[in-house]
């Protein structure tokens, strides 16, 4: 084993700073949008998020400290725990907002599904990175698909379409860098297109269908389902170049934009900080992705590299989707913006994921 001092010398401080900066921007936006003018203080969501931050930083530190290979080797155990927890919440979990996602342990409640991405990244990195030659055969791909399929279905049935979908890019990202043939990707894409009518008819729930149809024509139902999308555009557009200012936004703070502190936190940022704030934040996210890709390139083994790609694929997909949705340019889904949206479980799991990424880079010279 290598001494701690030598390890910390290889810690990617800029990546960590970028991650923490995004967390703080998110926290400030939640503070602003939940501000209660009558009581003169921020809403309870701010405090929850504030308490989640140190927990997340601890989780990041823990994930960083433990060798990712140790974790990868035990990934099947985590995988089993995840599946068990998902089955548990589907039977015993707390229902909130029409979905059974929450699991309560003593005072804390969390969403096991939020930890699905890390677990999947570990399992798949292990599957393709250790002792195999990547994802080159149909069999390789099939194994990954089965591993993905079980938690995917469980989360999908909660129902949490958004979170379940974020598991897919984890697998696709790892398979892609693991050498999956391009023609399979094309075939997979074709299959997806051909399957989509079946999914539409037999799998998707009415509310999910509604969201897609209203996305295609929001004006069809401007007071109902299309409202969020229209109001998100209004929030972003009314922000202008420089924004309305901290705590000066109307769309989010007055409730015209639903779940402004959560799914639409980026819309609020755009409203209050304007295009300038949007550019800064986008640049930070891109920077975080860039440094993470560096970590993947620098990784000393394929397990580490695939792990980083798996985590960052899920992260990147969710960031892109949420921000697109925040501007009213994608159908509204219950997908949060990693690092910025309100949500303790999400913050903790995301920071833990970055702990793993930092750990992979830090350990690039170790044996």
């Amino acid at each position, binding site marked *: 084993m290598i001494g701690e001092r030598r390890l910390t010398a290889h810690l990617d401080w800029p990546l960590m700073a970028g991650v923490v900066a995004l967390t703080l921007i998110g926290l400030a936006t939640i503070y602003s949008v939940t501000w209660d003018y009558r009581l003169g203080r921020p809403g309870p969501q701010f405090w929850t998020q504030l308490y989640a931050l140190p927990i997340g930083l601890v989780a990041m530190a823990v994930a960083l400290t433990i060798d990712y290979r140790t974790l990868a080797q035990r990934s099947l155990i985590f995988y089993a725990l995840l599946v068990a927890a998902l089955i548990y919440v589907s039977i015993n979990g707390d229902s909130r907002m029409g979905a059974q996602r929450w699991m309560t342990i003593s005072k804390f409640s969390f969403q096991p599904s939020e930890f699905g991405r890390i677990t999947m990244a570990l399992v798949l990195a292990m599957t393709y990175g250790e002792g195999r*030659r*990547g994802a080159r055969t149909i069999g390789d791909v099939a194994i990954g698909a089965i591993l993905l399929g079980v938690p995917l279905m469980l989360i999908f049935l909660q129902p949490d379409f958004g979170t379940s979908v974020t598991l897919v890019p984890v697998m696709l990202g790892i398979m892609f860098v693991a050498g999956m043939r391009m023609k399979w990707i094309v075939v997979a894409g074709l299959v997806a297109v051909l399957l989509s009518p079946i999914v539409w008819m037999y799998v998707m729930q009415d509310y999910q269908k509604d969201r897609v149809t209203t996305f295609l024509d929001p004006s069809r139902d401007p007071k109902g389902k299309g409202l969020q999308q229209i109001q998100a555009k*209004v929030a972003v557009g*009314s922000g202008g170049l420089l924004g309305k200012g901290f705590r000066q936004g109307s769309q989010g703070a*007055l409730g015209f934009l639903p779940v402004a502190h959560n799914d639409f936190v980026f819309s609020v940022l755009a409203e209050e900080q*304007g295009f300038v704030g949007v550019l800064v934040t986008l640049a930070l996210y891109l920077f975080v992705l860039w440094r993470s890709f560096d970590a993947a*390139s620098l990784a000393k083994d394929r397990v580490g590299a695939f792990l980083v*790609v798996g985590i960052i694929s899920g992260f*990147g997909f969710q960031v892109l989707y949420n921000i697109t949705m925040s501007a009213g340019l994608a159908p509204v889904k219950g997908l949060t913006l990693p690092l910025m949206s309100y949500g303790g479980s999400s913050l903790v799991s995301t920071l833990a994921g970055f702990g793993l990424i930092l750990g992979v880079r830090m350990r690039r010279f170790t044996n």
Partner: protein
Amino acid sequence: MLTSSAAEHRRGFETRIGVLRIGAILCFAALALGFWILQVVQHTKYEAWADKNYLRTIPLRAPRGVLFDRNGRVLVENRDAYTIVLLRERTANLNQAIARLAEAVGWPEDRVREPIQIAIKNKEQAFRPVLIVDHATMPQVAAVRARKLELPEVEVLQVPTRQYPDENLAAHVFGYVGQIRDDQMGKTEYAGLEPGAIVGQAGVEREYNGELKGEDGRSNVVVNSVGRQIQPLGQEDPREGERMQLTIDYDMQKALEDGFRAAGFNGAAAFLDPTTGEILALTSLPAYDPNAFATGIDRTAWAGLIGDPLNPMSNRLIQGRYAPGSVFKIVTAIAGLGTHAITPDFKVSCNGGGTFYGRFFQCLRSHGVVDLRHAIEQSCNTFFYTVGSKLSIDTIHEYAKKLGLVGKTGIDLPGEVDSFVGSSEWKQREFRQPWYPGETISVSIGQGAVSVTPIALATMISTVANGGTLVTPHLVRARDADGTGWKPVPMPAPRAKVELSQEDLQAVRDGLWMVVNGSGTGGKARIEGKDVSGKTGTAQVVSLTGAKAAAARMDVRDHGFFVFFAPRDNPQVAGIVFAEHGMHGSSAAPIAKYVLETFFAKKEGRPLPPLPAALKTAPAAEPREPVISTEVRRGGRGGGPVPER
């Protein structure tokens, strides 16, 4: 060292990471472009949209301008009416709130529920108060205020409301206010008003609505997505309407209406300052209660006013048209004198009538030889037939016009109708027939093709009183737009001038003086030392032959006019009293006398006279003036032929 296979792997891995990097950059660039379009290119559109989302205004009604009488006495002011409203945003259990409020105001629940359901159906926002009780009674207000804690969602609001004097005083001067009508909404005069705005609908309220209405204020509030009021954003206070000093004298107005009531007549009257045209008192009876409109008149009350056969909504003074009868003899006399067809010494021998153009025209009795003065005093038809036979209808028309009896007087009240005196041009236009000279004989005593409003007759007698200047009757003396003090309203320019020698004018005035102070029909208006001068007239409701047949269906008693001025040689007041179905002009004279006594008492600082007992006695039957015309006229407004404009 890496194996070659591993190196190959490495390269493939690096390439694919590179692909991901490029993909990420492209995605973020696309996002940045998207945000740039929304936030910079389309910013204006979305900014307006966002403002519309959260800014709401609640109108604050401006008090209308206060109306004063000529001596500064308040005539029409504003009082606070109480309105009980319910704020839906404050209640969690609407049904409970409705039940409690219904109990407090003593209404059935359904009556309270109805406006709330309408508000919900119309998707009105929850912060908007729902009007439950308009013009609440004091017990209702007290009950709601006493239950303040039980009824947190209910508020009592004060709304400025017009307060008119009691007993419908001067109702046709003030008019009334009401919610703006649909057909008024599009007009420029009412630009910027919202449905439900209160505007003047008649009288001075209507005529001067623009000045009196003031400017409504607004309270701006920030609301959230469910319409709950978050914080006030400041308030624009309403600006009170212009204060106006009317030319009306309260005491004369009161005397006039008390006089009418005591005499038991309906009708109309106007008292003017003959030199300026300022109206000192003006009435039309029956009237309505303007306060009933101010507090929102209900359907049945409105239907009752509209359907009333006595037509209380009509201002007879300016909207009723009547044959003036003998009052018109003043016009004939002035036309004769002005054209030098006669002199004051011109004499006619009356043997109970005369034959003109082969037809016999009746007089009341044989007056013997009369000159102009006595002809006026005795109201001798034969004399005026003779004068009329010397004049053309167009000359009479011309003089009638100069004396204000053709067209409108221009009084500042809405809805005035044209007065009419026939002419050859009119006859040709309307009937494609020449004017027959025989028709002029009827016109010369105010029958036939003559149909005028009482206010027109008032301007005619004012012109005689002031020496020949046709003034415009008007109701506003001074205005105060911004509380900086009264600014006098200039007198409207005279409309015409009758050239008449002093001698001729004096002859007419003498005759009119003798009507009241001699042996004429106006004796009941005589006031010692005041030289009241005047002339009575009678307007037939139906012809003698038709009277019996019509008597069962309608009031067929004739209308009485009395036009007057005083004192004879220095007239300070002039006017008309029109007694509907008063049988004869002499029955209008006592009312005029009482108001004139009030005028002089006030002027000389004496105590106001009490209501004379004589007024309360039934009108005595006076000798009926002769009737020439055989045509049947309708009573009330619109009798006689009417010219088209």
